[in-house]
């Protein structure tokens, strides 16, 4: 029973990590918190759903379409809401307000189209099979979710650490001025960061829709709150931190549902996050020093 819960927790946490990794990358590189990341997640889920139901596509093409759609939304968000503020050397809070506005608009449009009811992926979208590893039952769905999340996250880490453009992204994250003086097109790095991070958010949307077998137009809110908690917990802007934080939150939620009560799910898990932050105020991987001079 306990090990079974661990499998559930891993599937849940992996998706939180996937959502948070893009969220924290945007913060690390662009120094903004985009409160539209939940709406982007919802757009990704619906894009995957539409590809699955209207065009009968399988999970991999659905994920690709979802990532393309949410990446595009991320690009537009940057263009209309974030970039104009960047040009004006914005105050911290301005992009938050701008992205709340965008999130509201996107969500309203989707509610206009899809209403407020819940939608489901086709029931045989992921074959309903079980696998057993040393007594732990894993459904093919859980395996798919865990595998997809980790593959994407490993790709992101490889990109950031091993490729020329990935290193350019990290350089801009540390100091955009120094990055520019190396000949890095900083604006393009920002756009690229929004696209890639949003596409990860979209993939998380599809996987969440599959995990709970339901998607709806207001699914962006709860994940946004969790995303914020996770990136604070992990240390703002830190990729490893977002991964670890997502997994911790997943485990906290599943275990509190299993052993305490589902009514207290959020209270227990957010309480736990609060406790960790009391011990490490700047997060698990957070630096004590200020990021920039």
């Amino acid at each position, binding site marked *: 029973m306990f090990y079974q819960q661990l499998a559930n927790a891993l599937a849940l946490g992996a998706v939180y990590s996937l959502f948070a990794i893009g969220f924290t990358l945007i913060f690390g590189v662009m120094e903004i918190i985009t409160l539209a990341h939940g709406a982007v997640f919802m757009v990704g889920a619906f894009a995957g759903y539409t590809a699955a139901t209207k065009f009968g596509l399988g999970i991999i093409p659905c994920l690709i379409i979802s990532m393309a759609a949410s990446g595009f939304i991320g690009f537009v968000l940057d263009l209309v809401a974030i970039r104009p503020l960047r040009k004006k050397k914005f105050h911290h809070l301005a992009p938050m307000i701008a992205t709340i506005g965008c999130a509201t608009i996107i969500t309203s449009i989707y509610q206009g189209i899809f209403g407020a009811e819940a939608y489901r992926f086709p029931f045989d979208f992921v074959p309903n099979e079980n696998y057993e590893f040393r007594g732990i039952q894993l459904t093919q769905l859980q395996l798919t979710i865990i595998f997809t999340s980790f593959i994407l996250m490993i790709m992101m880490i490889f990109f950031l650490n091993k490729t020329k453009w990935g290193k350019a992204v*990290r350089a801009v994250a*540390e100091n955009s001025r*120094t990055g*520019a003086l190396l*000949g890095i097109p900083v604006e393009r790095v920002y756009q690229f960061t929004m696209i890639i991070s949003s596409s990860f958010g979209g993939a998380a949307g599809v996987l969440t829709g599959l995990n709970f077998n339901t998607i709806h137009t207001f699914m962006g809110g709860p994940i946004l709150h969790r995303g914020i908690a996770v990136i604070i917990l992990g240390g703002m802007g830190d990729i490893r931190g977002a991964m670890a934080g997502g997994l911790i939150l997943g485990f906290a939620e599943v275990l509190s549902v299993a052993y305490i009560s589902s009514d207290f799910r959020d209270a227990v898990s957010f309480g736990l996050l609060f406790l960790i932050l009391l011990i490490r105020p700047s997060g698990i991987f957070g630096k004590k020093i200020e990021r920039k001079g």
Partner: protein
Amino acid sequence: MLELTDICADYGHIQALKGISLRVGRGEIVALIGANGAGKSSTLNTISGIVRASSGSIIYKGKNITKSHTDSIVRSGIIQVPEGRAILTTMKVSENLELGAFIRKDKRQIKKDIDEILTRFPILGSRLNQPAGTLSGGEQQMLAIGRALMGRPELLLLDEPSMGLAPLMVREIFNIIADIHKTGTAILIVEQNARMALKISSRGYVLETGNIMIEDTSESLLNNRKIIDAYLGG
């Protein structure tokens, strides 16, 4: 090679540059000296496109770059080593060097150039996998210069390369600058250590509150009574 004409620049209501005109010839070392806050860094940053000129023009190799973006200015061969600790502290020494070659595509030659930089700065070779922030001040400055060289500059802009370094290290950095010049790279060097800067340069400009006050050969500036009193410590 580089010609600034009547460049003005401001930060909101602070007018930092009030009509700067200067030029740097091909392969020349030119010194820009002046007190703290005179506008030296602002001049370099305007050339690099980080600060926008409000009026005036910057011509580089016959092309008007006054409104160009920083990345295209860097790609055209003007590379700045900014003042202070301008390295990427969280990234490895090797990654700093690689990023210096961001604008280049000749992978094999980049590898060779890294080796060459490491023979010039052996201390960096033993630290390649360390975060650059763990280097000492002098080592960081060497890394910053080495990284700039990785971009194969035709014109190198150096902003106070000796700032905060011990005297022995200052001498070493100036030797390195003289070496770089010998390879044919033009250099515009900004320094508070005016004596050193004038000694290695052929011409110099003296900047005071956003204006060029004097322009002369470095030799006569070194013997100019006013300059000696004001900038060379009597």
